[in-house]
Each structure stands twice: as structure tokens, then as C-alpha cells.
């Protein structure tokens, strides 16, 4: 839970719309706002003053497209000045249409190409356990269309088999996968030994419950459904 400077969802939504990002992604820009907001506002143990604390929880935005919501939440929580939001994707701006972890305080992974976050999250989850931080958690946000990438399924099968209990995945499901997910998204995880919850992406209490649900011996997925 992080105390910030712009501390309501309405203020953060306004910040998200303040950003000027890629016009190729006009709708998806902010549909991830609700789960990211709930994470940073109520779940993640990260101190914006100590963004390199090795014990911190990690949030990996795998779906790097349309990062407005993510930038807005980070700004609202004080990771960088809100003024940065006015120049997104300009030549000298640290905030691009895809986030770069080496340029932005609080960004844990450089994203853009789909399907990298979940394998990176698997390694980070192992690494936190190996370096003495087994209670630190790794949250990876992927899109439902991003799940098309086979690298996710390599990670889903392995993480379930390995029982990576400090790994959480959020699937931001806006129904954009070209061929859909016959049988449901959650089933892809459950069949591999994950625990799973499917919730309405606008229901903050349901998101919070899923993000804080107990899963001591297996990874957990939250399918956050957004249907405009």
C-alpha cells in the first residue's frame, strides 16, 4: 500500500488521459487502470522513495502497449513528477509508448514485445526465493491477446509444475484475442495447477480479494474481464 499525491481513482484516471501516447492503441490505453491501481494502492509493498529495495514486491507490465494507466499510477504514487505525463513519447521523455525499465523509476521491466513478462516473472520469483525474500511477490500483467504468444504457455506450464507460490498473474481480458479462448482463460492456468479467479475488472473489491487470496503452494491468476 503506497500513499501518493493524487490518491483517488478519479484523479489517476484524469492523469492517464493526460498522457499522449500512441494513437494506434486508442481504446486499450486505460483499460488496465483498475487492476494496476488496486495493486499499487492496496497490495504491493513498494516504497517510491526506495525503488531498488531488494525485498520489494515486483509488478511486471508485460503488456507494454498503451502504458498510460501504468504511468499515471506511478506518477500518482510519487515515483516520478506528474509533469512527465505531458510529454510522453517525445524524444527526450523517459516515458515512451513502451516503458523502459532503465529510464523510469518504478518500472521493473522494459516491455513492448509481447510474451516476455511471464518468463521474466518466473525467473524473478525464483530469484527472490533464492536471495532470501520468499515473501516478496511478483505480479505480472498480460493481455488476453498477449496470451497468444507461446512463451506464456511455456511459463504457465512450468510455474504450475514448480509451484511458484510467490507468482501472481493478472490477465487483462478485453476480449481482443483474434481466436478467443474457447473454454475460458482461467482453465489454461488451472489445468496446470494454478489457482484462478475471474472477476469484473471494474470491481475493485473483487480484484483486491483475488490479489490477496491465499495460495501457499501454487501460483495464482486473476482474469480481470473488461467489456466496454
Amino acid at each position, binding site marked *: 500500500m503506497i500513499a501518493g499525491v493524487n490518491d483517488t481513482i478519479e484523479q489517476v484516471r484524469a492523469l492517464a488521459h493526460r498522457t499522449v501516447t500512441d494513437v494506434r492503441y486508442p481504446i486499450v490505453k486505460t483499460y488496465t487502470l483498475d487492476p494496476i491501481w488496486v495493486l499499487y494502492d492496496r497490495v504491493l509493498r513498494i516504497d517510491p522513495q526506495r525503488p531498488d529495495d531488494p525485498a520489494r514486491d515486483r509488478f511486471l507490465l508485460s503488456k507494454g502497449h498503451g502504458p498510460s494507466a501504468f504511468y499515471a499510477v506511478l506518477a500518482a504514487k510519487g515515483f516520478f513528477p506528474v509533469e512527465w505525463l505531458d510529454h510522453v513519447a517525445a524524444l527526450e521523455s523517459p516515458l515512451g509508448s513502451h516503458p523502459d525499465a532503465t529510464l523510469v523509476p518504478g518500472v521493473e521491466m522494459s516491455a513492448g514485445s509481447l510474451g516476455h513478462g511471464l*518468463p*521474466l516473472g518466473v*525467473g524473478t*520469483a*525464483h530469484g527472490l526465493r*533464492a*536471495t532470501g525474500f520468499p515473501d516478496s511477490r511478483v505480479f505480472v500483467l498480460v493481455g488476453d491477446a498477449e496470451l497468444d504468444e*507461446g512463451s506464456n504457455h*511455456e511459463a504457465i506450464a512450468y510455474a504450475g509444475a514448480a509451484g511458484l507460490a510467490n507468482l501472481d498473474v493478472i490477465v487483462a481480458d478485453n476480449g481482443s484475442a483474434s481466436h478467443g479462448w474457447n473454454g475460458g482463460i482461467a482453465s489454461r492456468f488451472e489445468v496446470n495447477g494454478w489457482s484462478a479467479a475471474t472477476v469484473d475488472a471494474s470491481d475493485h473489491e473483487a480484484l483486491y480479494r483475488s490479489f490477496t487470496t491465499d495460495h501457499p503452494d501454487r501460483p495464482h491468476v486473476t482474469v480481470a474481464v473488461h467489456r466496454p
Partner: protein
Amino acid sequence: MVFIADPLTDDRQTLTMRDAWAAHLTDLVDADPRLAVVLADISSEMFAEAMKAHPDRVINVGIREQLLIGTAGGLALAGMRPVAHSYAPFLVERAFEQVKLDFEHQGTSGVLVSVGASYDWAEGSFTHFSPRDVALFDTLPGWRVFVPGHAAEVPPLLDRAVRADDSVYLRLSLRHNENPHAVPEDSLLVLREGARATVVVVGPLLDNVLEATADLDVTVAYTNTPRPLDTAGLRELAADTGDTIVMVEPYLEGTSAWLVAEAYEDRPHRLLSIGVGREELRRYGTAAEHERLHGLDAEGLRARVRRFLA
């Protein structure tokens, strides 16, 4: 008819580079809590004990190469030094975007260790050949490339790879020289001096080059750390051989030509690049036979160097 069923072992070698690597890496993992090993089934039996001792640091993800590299990248994000390993084409080519994006682009680095090289398992043929690997690393910023020529060269190179801040690709092979050589860090080891050309040879092709040039008036310099290439040292040696250079590499022919050209922007030079051919041979047989087909045996090397100097 004789098949060598296992592409990773060689009955004629008491200790392969892979054996030396696995034994030393196991010791290093025991000693260094920041070190991690990620495997994709290949060689996993060599780390069975280490996996039990360090379940979050010695990991086998199964036959999943994208996950192999991504997991290594994630371990690096958590502050660890990851060593990821598989058969060369699967380690480097199959998940090359992960190699590109999951280390340097994240602001981290890692160590990749391959076996199989250019034609180790000739019976396995093209799918298991990886002559392009070093050329691919040349497309990325910051990677070091180590190519040992003998199993005894592996432990010190692994020590350097693990200690380095940069990413390192360590390329192991069943092909090897009779004896190991200690190369001064990041430079060329001069084994013979001559006047007509400077022959730089990388890793396991050294013995073939020494035999091929035994009675030729050339300098022979050896390296097992071809990236970064010691082009300053090369220029110094070649200054005494009329700026005439032969690069002999156990991977794709011409891989280092761009570096030599870059080093000679200010000065004319002659370069003969010798390495593994680009064409798919569609032949089986043995690694020694493939070496001959690519003109990398002593006889083939000798013919090309003599033609170049004629």
C-alpha cells in the same frame, strides 16, 4: 555401421569441455549464493545434485527455450548472475528475441553456455549445427564471446564469465586441441612468428592451423576470447607481416571480417577469412569429416593460406 547415439559425449575424450564446465559450475554454485543455473533438459542430469541442494538457483524448465532465457533474465532482474545452457541452435537461435530483450534491454546481463558448436554432432546434421551463433551476438551490444580450445581452458573462462559485468557467451565444443593454452586476458597468444602473414585462430582449430602452417613463414596467434577481439594486438602483429591477415574461426566464415575492416579504416590491408561455410551440406558422417568438407582440416587450411600468399 556405427552410430554415435549421444550427441553430447565423446568416448575418446576422458573429459569434455561440457564435463569440465558442469563440474566447475557446480562448485561455483555451491560457493556463490548469487549464481544461478537455468537448464532446458540438456545436461540436466549433470546437475541433479545441485538442483536438490539449490532448488531456486539450479532450475530445469524442461524443453522450453523461450522460458529458459526469460527465466535467466528474471533471475538477473532479482540481482542474480544467471548461467543459461542448452544445445547451441536452441540456446541462441530459437529464442533470439529473448536473448536480445531479456538482458541488455532490461539493464541486466547474463551468461549463456552452449554445446554442439558448428558440427559436433554431424549425424544430427543441420538442425543441430550452429555456425551462425557468434555472428548473431555481433548484432547485439556488449556481449563477450569465449571459445575454448580445450577442456582445461573452460574453468578459467567460466570464472571470468561469472565475474564479468557484461553478458558472456561461452561456446563449448567436442572439437579440441591436443593441449590447453593460457591466453593473456583479452589478447592474442603468439605461438609462432613469421613475416608473410598473421594468422589468428580461434579455439579448437589451433592444432589444424599449426599443422597447416608448419613450414610457412607466418605468425600464428591464438585466442579463446574472440569478443572483444584484440584488434590493437592484431594490428601490432600484422605490422610485421605486411598487414596481411588470415582469420581462422570455427564458426561462420567471415564472422570477424567486419572487425578487422573497422580496425583498418586508416590503412590498406589484406584479409583471408576462413571458417564454416554458409551452404547446407545435407551430409551426415563425423565432425572430422565436416571439418574437412569445410576446408578446416590441416590440408584444406594449408591450401587456402598458400593460395592467399602466392
